């Protein structure tokens, strides 16, 4: 583990509050504003999709039209005008880049600014001795580059953009896309199914342990654009993969919608570890601007002994609204959810998880750490369901909330449903404040206010941060410090 001090040093060097707030001046191609069948046909055509994909999109759109936007969540937001947004924005290039050298240098520059090395030689140079990370970068609506593709292909691993996979591996995409999150699942999932423009696709063949971390970096750049990416990860029998997802967006006064769908499928004895560091632009201290992060993430543990771990560090977005979930279908399958959610200023979050125990001896573990500062408000909402056949299933849930200041809120709403007498569910929850005594103790040892808060909060989240892959743990610790700047004093 990298220490807090180093993280804090890095925080200091960063200075201003949201360092990813820049805009890349790049020639983009937009489809006209608005949402209708023609736009969907256009997206599908632009992406040269097979006919079945267009059909699925149109079905999803037709269904979406019949749905009502949900209102049960705690954070309320002003109505979104779905006709006043662009559904397709792509960096303008005459042809799809064949190699990284064909990618617009401005794009590469953007990712460099974000600290995402796309050039494989740089990746190699940068992480010598450490495990390498293969990156798929999604800029506005399209995947712009995937690194290490060839190396992964040697082992039969498929990693790249989902549009590409639809052409190269249509049978796989068709079999699994929408199998975990069907388009009718919820309002935003239906919208995503209709208009998603790209995302990552991963397939790990039987018995293969993916030799490196796979990573997607999402970037919203264009104005008035929604980002609707779609991620599908399939881990076949006995395979293993660790996948990282990072997100940033420029600083703008308007809200932007990010409605992604992530589907994970784990077969017998397979394991997927999915980590997110979400740092979308959170809006300013008065709540102007920022991303609406309304995402559906769900894993199906289909096989016996399969395992899925979600780890999320959520520091960005004006509103975060999502519940990464596990459907524990295979006997002895395991689902884990480790979450750190930090809200500051006017940020709002309603997040948690769902663990649906179907198979026998299924296990789930939920560790949620929520930190609220400023005038922010945060809700943990979680469902643990033990279905009739979930003999001897077990769940353990721990929800800890930490309050900084006296204008923020923290709420815990656990739903527990059990239909099996042999299943066990445990729930523990705590709410605390950063104590004046803790702050004074740190200050008396020479630490400044913000350094002290970052240290205490990093300690509070340690259990979760420890589950992140090394590369992300460093970034996450930095973020904890940055996102709480100005929360004391």
């Amino acid at each position, binding site marked *: 583990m990298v220490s807090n001090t180093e993280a804090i040093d890095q925080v200091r060097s960063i200075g201003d509050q949201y360092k990813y707030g820049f805009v890349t001046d790049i020639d983009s191609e937009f489809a006209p504003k608005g949402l209708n069948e023609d736009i969907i046909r256009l997206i599908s055509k632009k992406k040269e999709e097979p006919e079945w994909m267009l059909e699925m999109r149109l079905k999803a759109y037709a269904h979406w039209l019949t749905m009502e936007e949900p209102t049960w969540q705690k954070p309320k937001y002003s109505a979104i005008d779905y006709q006043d947004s662009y559904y397709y924005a792509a960096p303008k290039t005459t042809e799809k880049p064949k190699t990284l050298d064909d990618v617009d240098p401005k794009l590469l520059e953007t990712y460099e600014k974000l600290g995402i090395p796309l050039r494989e030689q740089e990746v190699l140079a940068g992480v010598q001795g450490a495990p390498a990370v293969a990156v798929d970068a999604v800029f506005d609506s399209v995947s712009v580059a995937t690194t290490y593709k060839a190396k992964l292909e040697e082992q039969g691993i498929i990693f790249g953009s989902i549009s590409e996979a639809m052409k190269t591996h249509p049978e796989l995409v068709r079999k699994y896309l929408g199998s975990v999150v069907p388009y009718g699942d919820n309002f935003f999932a239906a919208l995503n199914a209709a208009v998603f423009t790209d995302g990552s696709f991963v397939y790990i063949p039987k018995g293969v342990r993916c030799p490196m971390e796979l990573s997607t970096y999402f970037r919203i750049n264009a104005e008035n654009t929604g980002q609707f990416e779609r991620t599908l990860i399939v881990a076949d029998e006995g395979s293993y993969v660790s996948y990282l997802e990072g997100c940033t967006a420029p600083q703008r006064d308007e809200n932007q919608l990010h409605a992604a769908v992530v589907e994970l499928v784990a077969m017998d004895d397979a394991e997927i570890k999915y980590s997110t560091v979400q740092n979308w632009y959170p809006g300013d201290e008065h709540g102007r601007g920022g991303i609406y992060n309304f995402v559906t993430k769900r894993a199906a543990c289909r096989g016996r002994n399969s395992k899925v771990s979600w780890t999320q560090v959520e520091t960005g977005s004006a509103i975060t609204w999502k519940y990464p979930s596990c459907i524990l279908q295979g006997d002895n399958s395991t689902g884990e959810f480790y979450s750190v959610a930090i809200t500051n200023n006017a940020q709002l979050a309603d997040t948690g998880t769902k663990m649906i125990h179907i198979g026998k001896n299924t296990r789930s573990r939920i560790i949620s750490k929520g930190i609220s500062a400023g005038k922010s408000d945060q809700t943990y909402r979680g469902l643990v369901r033990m279905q009739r056949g979930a003999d001897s299933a077990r769940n353990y849930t721990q929800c800890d909330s930490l309050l900084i200041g006296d204008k923020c809120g923290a709420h815990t709403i656990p739903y527990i449903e059990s239909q099996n007498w042999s299943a066990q569910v445990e729930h523990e929850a705590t709410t605390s404040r950063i104590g004046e005594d803790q702050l004074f103790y740190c*200050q008396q040892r020479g630490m400044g206010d913000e350094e002290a808060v970052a240290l205490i909060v990093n*300690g509070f989240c340690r259990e979760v941060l420890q589950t992140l892959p090394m590369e992300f743990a460093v970034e996450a610790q930095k973020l904890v410090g940055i996102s709480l700047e100005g929360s004391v004093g």
Partner: protein
Amino acid sequence: MAMLEIHDLHATVDGKVILNGLNLTIDAGEVHAIMGPNGSGKSTLSYVLTGRHGYEVTGGKIMFDGNDLMQMEPDERAREGVFLAFQYPVEIPGVTSMTFLRTAVNAVREHRGEAPFDPMDFVKHLRKSATDLNISDDMLKRAVNVGFSGGEKKRMEMLQMAALEPRISILDETDSGLDIDALKIVADGVNAMRSSERGILLITHYQRLLEYIEPDHVHVLAQGQIVKSGDKSLALELEEKGYSEFLDNAA
């Protein structure tokens, strides 16, 4: 110029007068002991010196190395070399003692214009003091004061003092709750810190600690003032007679 000069100090807590015209001068190289009955203002003095929120100075002056201490924030005072060993050290869950110590030491080093320690160098830097205080690597990996025994907490305070190399150390009832073995270890830790560069202020209720750390000066604090000063024999006198004499005077 004395290192620490407290002149006619008045302080209140929640509007209640606790310090009422306290005078005290400590020179570098000296060990002072302040003794007094419960509620005489001993802990308040330590918090006023370190700038804790809620301890309001209503009059008087505190000069530290010629600078007005009251103009400094708590963390600035600490970086300038004012150290308080807490009577009740605070728990910080999830933060290892090693990380806490290194963060603190690097904050002070940065202030002094020295390069920060990386984790490996810091372990080496800490090794001797930790061994002297009988603090194991395992203890350094545990979260700050979480699940520590009374003795472990006080030893960890001493380790922090050794690592931070303060100009003046204030020890607030460091002897409370210690058995004799722990008391000896802590006293050895304090004695090892004695130097011509450094002042030490021991705040204690009992004379017991002073058998192991010999003070140059002993003061009696009662009703928010230093009512009597003397050498170490004063401590023995107090042990014998108790504090009733000073309480009666005020009544």
